[in-house]
């Protein structure tokens, strides 16, 4: 049993020679047992990264290790829910779960899957094509959790759920993950959706890793400062600074105690993420290496 769920080294994936790579030189490590938020703007490479981890795509550069082995060898121990929740429309819910049982004979836990379906008040004899978007998501999650995965990869899992269903399903997911020590990677471009349920963050921008590490450490590494415009912020790393009149607002990674004349605040996750998205040239911060930060 390894303590690393996903480890990527120089991971890259290109679709066609002329297009910019979807992922480019990604190096990060996700420890096992974490609930990781994978975020970034549209087209940042979130889906590509999840597909690579699920063994659906082959990297064009670098490598990715999942649960201590190749994604293909880890296939039985991971579950993946794609963005548009593909399911066979002609099957019933019960038929879909039977598919999960047949295709995962060594791992399938029917009780878990049936419970998730029942919690949504769904009749197992309903055909998949008759379900709403949110109901489909529920069945797709039941199929994924019924496999009892050690690693659960979810691509925009809550995108088509109403707030109540989103809350319910997140709770189900988190309870299940906590009970079994499942590592969860959840992508979303809505940051607020992820705060509260995740303890690890991976921020992608233009195919590169911008931020990676435990959520608390990443937040602690940043400070929101306000002060008089024109004052130097050296030697701190400035992620983003904006001057409105004589007032300066900046998100910095302090290299030591901040000087006098600055008021400092703890930023929210959304502020940290947005500041990085608005400043594509800010240096990446990777706090996920064993022991040391970069």
């Amino acid at each position: 049993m390894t303590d690393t769920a996903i480890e990527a080294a120089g991971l890259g994936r290109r679709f066609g020679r002329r297009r910019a790579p979807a992922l480019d030189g990604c190096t990060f490590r996700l420890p096992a047992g974490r609930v990781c938020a994978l975020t970034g703007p549209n087209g940042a490479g979130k889906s590509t990264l999840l597909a690579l981890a699920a063994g659906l795509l082959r990297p064009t550069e670098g490598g990715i290790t999942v649960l201590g082995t190749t994604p293909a060898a880890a296939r039985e121990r991971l579950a993946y829910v794609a963005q548009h929740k593909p399911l066979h429309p002609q099957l019933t819910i019960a038929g879909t779960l039977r598919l999960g049982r047949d295709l995962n004979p060594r791992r399938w836990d029917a009780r878990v899957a049936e419970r998730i379906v029942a919690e949504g008040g769904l009749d197992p004899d309903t055909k998949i094509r008759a379900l709403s978007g949110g109901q489909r998501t529920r069945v797709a999650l039941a199929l994924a959790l019924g496999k009892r995965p050690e690693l659960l990869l979810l691509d925009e899992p809550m995108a088509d759920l109403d707030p109540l269903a989103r809350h319910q399903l997140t709770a189900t997911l988190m309870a299940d993950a906590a009970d079994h020590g499942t590592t969860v990677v959840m992508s979303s471009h809505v940051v607020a959706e992820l705060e509260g349920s995740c303890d690890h963050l991976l921020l992608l921008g233009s195919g590169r890793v911008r931020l990676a590490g435990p959520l608390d450490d990443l937040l602690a590494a940043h400070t929101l400062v306000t002060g008089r415009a024109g004052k130097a912020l050296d030697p701190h790393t400035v992620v983003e600074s904006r001057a409105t009149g004589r007032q300066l607002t900046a998100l910095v990674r302090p290299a030591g105690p901040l000087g006098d004349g600055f008021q400092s605040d703890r930023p929210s996750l959304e502020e940290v993420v947005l500041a990085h998205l608005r400043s594509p040239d800010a240096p990446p911060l990777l706090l996920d290496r064993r022991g040391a930060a970069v």
Partner: protein
Amino acid sequence: MTALDTVTAPAVTRHTSPSRGLVLAMLRLHRTALLFWLGLVVVAAGALLWAMGPGADAAWAEYTDLGCDQAAPNLGCDSPGPANSRYQTAVTVAIGLVRLLPLLTGAWAGGALIGRELENGTAQLAWTQSVGPARWLAAKLAVPALLLVTGTLTLTLLHRMLWSADRGAAINVMGWRAWHDTGVFEVNGTIAAAEALAALALGVLAGMLLRRTLPALGVAVLTVMSLVYVLDALRPYLWPVKTVVTSLDDGTPGIDSMIVETGAMTASGARVPIPSCSGEPGCDARTGITHYYADYHPASHFWPLQLMETGLLLAVAALAAATAFVLLRRRTGAAV
């Protein structure tokens, strides 16, 4: 992980082979296609069995009532009666269904079996269960292949029984059917089954290449049509022909051979087209032809021709299937 082990324990005792589960899942997913195939085989087999039994009885009774089995048949023997028509219709329906099979198979394999699954992502759903892409593709090829070959060979056996029965042979002559006719030739041997296999593999390849339902369906149908057409044209050249040279009075050889080419010969032995003035007085002398010739396949060439064409079809099927595996592997990087 002990908690996990106790939870999964009941599942372990059931069946542990993902391959078996994959076959079950496939049959359930493509139940409509399976029922359609069973229906097609039942209809075609039913038509052949009926033709062999009551159909042939009635047609034969009509035939003998008209005195057509006598040494000097009368003119009425040329136009079949109603019982004979019914017999011919039944046989035509069965042969027609078998001839339609490669197209239907190719369309289904490209569209429903592979293209749709890659287009809407259900293929990726399968690949992230405990079975890998390669095993998934193997099942997609093997299960339909087995069912197609079993069904088609059943129809072939039934048609051969019908064809070789004495009465059947006589009635078939009345229906102007010969062993080398397109349709009859394929269903009487291994070609029908091999065509279905090649269509399946080409459809799967089209689906893998195009990854969308309708384009894959269209391309698969066009490819299978071209293959059937090309092989039909190529058929006479798959085995060395026999040549018969006849004098100008005898004409060309009889109808029970697959005629490949006919023409005239000059005194030097050169082959020339039959002159347009053929039959007119003085024509032969004017054009210098001395004999007619015909390249043909006698009925004894049936199996060599069958096996050559079957071999070609199986080679196409194997090549298409192998290419599909290579494509899948290049895309997913997964071995098993």
